[in-house]
C-alpha cells in the first residue's frame, strides 16, 4: 500500500511538473491572465472605487460574490466542526479538582460536595494540570491587547495596505486562542462563550449578504456598493470604498469567530471542559 502510494505520488508529481512547462513565464506581461482583465483592474480600480490596494478592490468589489461565498464556506467549516465534534450529553467528571493557591495543595471534591466560593483562595484546575507560569501568563496578558489593536488596524486599513478582513480576523481569533493556551479553556469560554462565537460567525456572513441585499433594495444590482451613496452621504465612488470596509468588517467578524469556535471544539474534543 505504501509503495503504491509512493508510485502514485511520484507519477502525479512528474505530470504536474511537466504541466508547469506550458505555463507563461513569471511576470510575463503578454500572458493571457495579465492581458485581459488585469489591465482594467490596475488602470480603473482607483477611479472606480477610490481604493489604493487593487487586491482589496478586486476581492471585495469586482469579485464580491467570490469573497461572499468564501466567507460562507468558512462559516460552514465552523458549523461542520461543531456538528461533528460537539458532545452535549457529556458525562461530567465525577470529581472536580481545586488547588489552594497559597499552599499548592490540590483537593478533589466529589459530586455533591461543597464547592469553594468564587473569591476564595481555591482555583479550579484541569485534570492534567501544568504549573502556574508567571512569565507566560504575564507576557501573553501584556502582548494580547497590542496584537488585537494590530488586527483591527489590518481590518480597517485593508484597502490602503496589504491585509483585510480575512487576515485581520485570523489575527484577532489567534489572540483569543493565545489567551486560551496561556490560561485555560474555561476562563476563555467565560470571556467569549460558544454562543457568542456562533452568533458572531453567522452575523459576519449576514452583514456581508445584507449589504448586498441593501444595494439590491436601493435599486442597483447585488453587491454594487455605489447604490449606498445616498445612505452614506458620499459620492458613488467613495460609497464603494465604504462598502468594501463594511464587508471587510463582516468577513473579519466571521473569520475571527470561526477560528475561536474551531479551537474550542478541537482542543477539548467537543466537551468544552478542558483545553490544551
Amino acid at each position, binding site marked *: 500500500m*505504501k509503495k503504491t502510494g509512493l508510485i502514485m505520488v511520484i507519477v502525479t508529481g512528474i505530470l504536474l511538473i511537466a504541466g508547469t512547462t506550458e505555463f507563461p513565464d*513569471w511576470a510575463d506581461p503578454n500572458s493571457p491572465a495579465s492581458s485581459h482583465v488585469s489591465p482594467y483592474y490596475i488602470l480603473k480600480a482607483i477611479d472606480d472605487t477610490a481604493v489604493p*490596494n487593487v*487586491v*482589496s478592490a478586486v476581492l471585495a468589489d469586482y469579485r464580491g460574490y467570490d469573497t461572499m461565498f468564501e466567507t460562507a464556506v468558512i462559516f460552514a467549516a465552523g458549523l461542520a466542526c461543531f456538528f461533528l465534534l460537539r458532545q452535549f450529553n457529556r458525562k461530567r467528571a465525577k470529581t472536580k479538582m481545586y488547588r489552594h493557591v497559597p499552599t499548592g495543595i490540590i483537593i478533589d471534591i466529589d459530586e455533591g460536595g461543597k464547592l469553594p466560593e468564587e473569591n476564595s483562595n481555591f482555583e479550579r484546575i484541569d485534570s492534567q494540570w501544568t504549573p502556574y507560569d508567571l512569565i507566560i501568563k504575564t507576557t501573553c496578558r501584556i502582548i494580547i491587547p497590542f496584537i488585537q489593536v494590530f488586527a483591527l488596524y*489590518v481590518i480597517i486599513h485593508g484597502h490602503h495596505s*496589504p*491585509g*483585510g478582513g*480575512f*487576515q485581520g480576523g*485570523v*489575527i484577532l*481569533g*489567534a489572540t483569543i*486562542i493565545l489567551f486560551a*493556551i496561556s490560561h485555560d479553556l474555561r476562563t476563555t469560554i467565560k470571556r467569549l462563550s460558544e454562543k457568542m462565537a456562533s452568533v458572531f460567525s453567522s452575523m459576519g456572513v449576514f452583514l456581508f449578504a445584507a449589504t448586498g441585499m441593501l444595494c439590491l433594495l436601493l435599486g442597483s444590482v447585488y453587491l454594487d456598493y455605489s447604490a449606498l451613496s445616498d445612505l452614506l452621504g458620499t459620492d458613488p465612488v467613495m460609497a464603494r470604498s465604504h462598502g468594501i470596509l463594511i464587508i471587510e468588517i463582516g468577513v473579519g467578524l466571521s473569520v475571527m469567530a470561526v*477560528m475561536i469556535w*474551531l*479551537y474550542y471544539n*478541537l*482542543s477539548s*474534543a467537543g466537551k468544552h471542559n478542558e*483545553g*490544551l
Partner: protein
Amino acid sequence: MVWQFDVIILTLVIVCGIGALAVKDLIGAAILFSAYSFLMCLLWAIMGAVDVAFTEASVGAGVSTVLFVAAVFQTRRRSKD
C-alpha cells in the same frame, strides 16, 4: 530579485515538506508544516503577492498549526506509518 534567495528558500521548502511526511512524531510534523508555510510566505512576499503572503503567515503558519497541535493532543502523538 536575487535568485540565490529563491533557490535557498525553495530547497528549504522541499526539505520541510519531505520532513513533515517522514517524521514519526505528529507534533514535529505540525511544526515542520508551520515552517513550510512560513517559507511559502517568504516566497509569496518575494514574488510581490503581499496579501497572499500575509494570509499564509497568519493562517498557515499561525492558526492552522495550533489546530493541528490541538487535534494531535486529542488523538495519538505517534504516526503508524
